Structure formats: C-alpha cells, structure tokens
C-alpha cells in the first residue's frame, strides 16, 4: 500500500521545511532570546535553551500551523516560555537590557525590537494595553540616561 513509505516521506519533507525555516530565522530569534535573558552575544546558554524548546514546539505543531507564520508562532512561544520562567532570569548577565526587569525586557523586545503592535503585545503577555505602553515608556527612559528625564522634562532641547 505504501502507506508506511508515504508517512516516512512526509516526515522527511516536514523536517526539511523546518530546517529551512530555522536556517533563515534562527539568527534573529536567538538575538531576541539573548536580549530577553540579558546574556551576552558570545555566552548565551539560557537563550539557546529557551529557543531550542520553542523551536521544538513549533516543529511539533508544524502540520497544524494552517498558514500561520512559523516565525510568529515561535516568537509567541518564546515570549510565553520566558514569562513563565522569568524569575530565573531576573539578574541579567551583561546584555544591553540587563538593567531592566524581565517584564520590561519582554515589552521592549516585542514592541521595539520585533515591532509587534501594542495590542498584540498586550494579548501575548496577558496585560492591558495601557500597562504595555507604560512599561515601554518607563523602560525607554531607563535605558536612556539611567532613569532621569522622564515625561516631566519637556524643556531640554535636543
């Protein structure tokens, strides 16, 4: 009947598709994961572990994506996974965002690095939109000039 062989072939086809996806997207995703865990570019074991788990999840869902972008799916899983284990990543290890809390890092990475809309970010993180906006604004001023000069500094010309 060739049923076995057909299944095997399908499996190989899926693996090839998945590998092509990883080859194209892994660099950017690993960068995002490294920003989240606040590790450095050269030493990021936590980010690698996080991304491997999310990619495995995407691979397992591959046949059920139904036209959904695997990149978006992986990014959503990465964010959810990081949010679940955020207490482990509280202290940054020297990345750009290590001054921020895990939640602030999540918002900054999704909103500013990945350019996810405010509404979708709020849905992904289970937060109200106003909160996302507030956390983002707070993080931006914390990253620029160590917290001074929040919204109450309109006089400074640039």
């Amino acid at each position, binding site marked *: 009947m060739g049923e076995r062989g057909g299944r095997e072939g399908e499996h190989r086809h899926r693996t090839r598709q998945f590998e092509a996806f*990883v080859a194209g997207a892994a660099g950017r995703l690993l960068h995002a994961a490294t920003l989240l865990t606040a590790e450095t570019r050269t030493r990021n074991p936590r980010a690698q572990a996080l991304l491997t788990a999310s990619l495995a999840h*995407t691979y397992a869902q591959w046949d059920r994506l139904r036209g959904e972008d695997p990149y978006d799916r992986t990014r959503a899983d990465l964010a959810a996974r990081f949010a679940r284990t955020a207490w482990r990543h509280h202290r940054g290890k020297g990345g750009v965002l290590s001054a921020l809390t895990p939640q602030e890092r999540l918002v900054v990475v999704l909103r500013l690095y990945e350019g996810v809309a405010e509404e979708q970010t709020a849905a992904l993180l289970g937060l109200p939109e106003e909160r996302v906006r507030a956390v983002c604004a707070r993080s931006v001023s914390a990253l620029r000039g160590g917290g001074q000069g929040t919204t109450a500094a309109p006089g400074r010309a640039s």
Partner: protein
Amino acid sequence: MTRHEQREDEVRRMLETPYPQVPGDLAARAVERGNRLLHRDRMTRRALWALLVVAVLVFTVWAARERPWEVPPAGTTPPLEGL
C-alpha cells in the same frame, strides 16, 4: 510625540547589534525534541482512548448483568384490603 518616537528609535538602534552565532546543531536538537513531544502526545492520546474503551466495556458488561432499567421485584407484598 516625536520626541518620544525619537527616544524609541534610539533604543531600537541600541538593540540592533550583530546576531549571536547560532549553534550548528540547533535545528537537529529542536527536531529531536519536537519528535519526543509528538511521541508523548501520541502516547497520551492512545492511553486516553484505551481508558475510554475499557470504561465503555465495563459499563456494557455491568448493564447487561444488572439490567438497571428493569423494575426490581417488590420486596414486600401489598397490604391485604377489602376484607
């Protein structure tokens, strides 16, 4: 408004550093782990189906023996009246 956007742009530029090096076996490890996930899902589904089949079987045997739909024979005789 524009000031705010300007600052966001500045942070965006801070984040746009070169990508970290991707380990060569990342895809392979993800595939292996994904296959384990799929296998576990399949096993769980199979176990649940088996449980359902057993439950239906047990119920059928019990119902065939006990015939719960039949009115049980009266335990007491009705009181004698009209004497």
